[in-house]
């Protein structure tokens, strides 16, 4: 049985991060299905998932060969780069400095772009559509694979973290099948904020462990780090929120 003080945040981070990524991939797959039918959409998605599985099966066992401290340090640093990057963007979106991610707008833009691309080609329209689905699932899937490895590999939690990611995939597929439209009601920025907080907290924790730092409280330090990143992220968003200008009549 995993220790849920560590496994809980790992599964939660993998689930929430995967939810965001799978929603983004689902929008593109839906564009392909709307334009050219489900055949190229499913073919492109299946090919990407097969390639992702191959990458995981090939590279996964190599992780066991890397000394734990080195693995924690490398993954910790990558998590810091990835997590703080996400948190920075989520804080800017929360503050209204950059616009929120809008799946409806992305669906419309991608439909127009892919529609124009398909129309230019006389012969390989399904192929072009399938490639679009393939690329979207592969790109978002690679991020999911990285996150699962990053939050799971440091303490042998790859299994629970993978389950978190798979649960997110299943949830999006079921919701998408029922809705048949982009999943706009997913509070994407709130999720990204939460995931950025958790990935940054894991980043500090693993980097420290990799450097040989004994965190007081052991795994519980993760929760303290997460609380600090949450408060700092919210504080930063508040700090840069544009002041509404008064309209004088």
């Amino acid at each position, binding site marked *: 049985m995993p220790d849920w003080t560590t496994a809980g945040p790992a599964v939660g981070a993998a689930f929430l991060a995967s939810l965001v990524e799978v929603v983004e991939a689902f929008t593109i797959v839906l564009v392909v299905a709307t334009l050219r039918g489900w055949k190229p959409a499913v073919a492109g998605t299946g090919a990407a998932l097969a390639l992702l599985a191959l990458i995981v099966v090939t590279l996964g066992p190599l992780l066991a060969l890397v000394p734990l401290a080195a693995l924690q340090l490398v993954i910790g640093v990558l998590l810091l780069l990835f997590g703080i990057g996400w948190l*920075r963007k989520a804080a800017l979106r929360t503050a209204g400095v950059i616009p929120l991610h809008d799946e409806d707008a992305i669906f419309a833009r991608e439909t127009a772009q892919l529609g124009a691309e398909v129309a230019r080609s006389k012969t390989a329209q399904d192929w072009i559509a399938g490639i679009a689905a393939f*690329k979207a699932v592969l790109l978002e899937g690679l991020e999911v694979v990285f996150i699962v490895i990053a939050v799971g590999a440091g303490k042998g939690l790859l299994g629970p973290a993978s389950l978190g990611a798979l649960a997110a995939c299943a949830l999006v597929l079921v919701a998408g099948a029922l809705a048949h439209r982009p999943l706009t009601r997913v509070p994407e920025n709130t999720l990204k904020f939460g995931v950025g907080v958790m990935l940054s907290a894991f980043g500090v924790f693993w980097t420290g462990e990799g450097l*040989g730092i004994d965190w007081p409280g052991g795994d519980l330090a993760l929760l303290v780090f997460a609380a600090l990143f949450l408060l700092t992220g919210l504080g930063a968003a508040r700090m840069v929120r544009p002041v509404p200008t008064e309209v004088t009549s």
Partner: protein
Amino acid sequence: MSILKDVLADLASMFVADARLTGAILALVAVAAMLVWAGLPSLVGGAVLLVGCLAVLVLAVRREAARRARR
């Protein structure tokens, strides 16, 4: 080739979305490592890493907001 290029560009952008943020985090990890490996109590390095990351986050958000406000 275009797919491979897109995948590599996407992977790079995962970690280097903002070059200054990336540089600051890497510098911070290097400083924390030096403090730990210099024989100081490991918590000193840990505190520098944690507080540094929080400060880097605030500075990165403020810098980007200021940059966009100037446009």
